[in-house]
């Protein structure tokens, strides 16, 4: 993705509304961008152009769906203590799996944290086992047992 040089200070009121107000209930109708445009007093073209600009700038990842944990398929959080000298290589190896959606380096001895999601629990287990085998490092499997707050989006400016 080509990232345009758009900085936080370039964002105007419309950008902020588009980033903030539609994280949860994006309209599901024939012309959703027209629906947004009408409620904002703008044109559909303008709203689409802004979404494109914010996406090109890497500020919006996508307009998409987040499923509740384990309602669709199976998932887990996994963690590894990776020696710093091999961290980049191991992080690349882990991110290379299509089943890995999120992969973070965190400042702790257990420094690599990633989410594995697949169509079945068996496939999740197989991915963890394969990563363990390929890296020669133990992989902590930390499945969710209860959820207290799901991904509802996060207010950026309120």
């Amino acid at each position, binding site marked *: 993705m080509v990232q345009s040089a758009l900085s936080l200070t370039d964002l105007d009121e419309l950008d902020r509304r588009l980033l903030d107000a539609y*994280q949860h209930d994006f309209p599901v109708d024939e012309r959703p961008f027209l629906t947004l445009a009408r409620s904002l007093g703008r044109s559909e073209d303008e709203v689409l152009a802004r979404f494109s600009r914010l996406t090109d700038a890497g500020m919006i990842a996508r307009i998409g769906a987040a499923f509740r944990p384990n309602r*669709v398929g199976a998932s887990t959080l996994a963690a590894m203590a990776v020696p710093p000298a091999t961290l980049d290589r191991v992080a690349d190896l882990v991110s290379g799996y299509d089943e890995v959606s999120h992969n973070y380096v965190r*400042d702790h001895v257990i420094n690599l944290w990633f989410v594995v999601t697949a169509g079945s629990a068996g496939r999740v287990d197989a991915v963890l086992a394969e990563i363990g085998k390929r890296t020669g490092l133990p992989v902590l499997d*930390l499945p969710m047992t209860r959820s207290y*707050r799901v991904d509802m989006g996060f207010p950026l400016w309120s």
Partner: protein
Amino acid sequence: MELTADDLRLIGALRAGLPLCPRPYDALGERIGLDGATVRRRLDLYRQEGALSRFGVVVRHDRLGYTASAMVVWDVPEDRVDALGRHLGAQSGVGLSYCRRRRPPLWPGNLYAMIPGRSRDAVRAVVARLNETCGLGAYPHELLFTVRCHKIAAAAYGWQP
């Protein structure tokens, strides 16, 4: 919920995001051989069934000034975790919260919260408030700041293009 082959194709196509065009559900459907009305009907159904936690704009917090986000993990007794977790999940400043299986002795913690933050000090202040407000200060915790987002993508459920 049980997913049909059409659902798996639709969820797979959605990983790249809704196309930015005037009739995005029609465009999405065209890629996978469904008409726009069917696509919208399935999305409405996921919502009604409560399968979705959200459908909308996914922002990159790390590109919007939230460069000091952290994960906090407390080690709390099993018989207290649900009450503490529900209280924790309702606090402002908490992005996500859940209980996960512990892996002692390496990783004894079980109660997680994700804290988006613009600075490490701001995140530490939120954690101090959570410790105080939720009575979590009595339990050991680990605070892990994000050093680098190596990958952030939509979840895959086994569908391949």
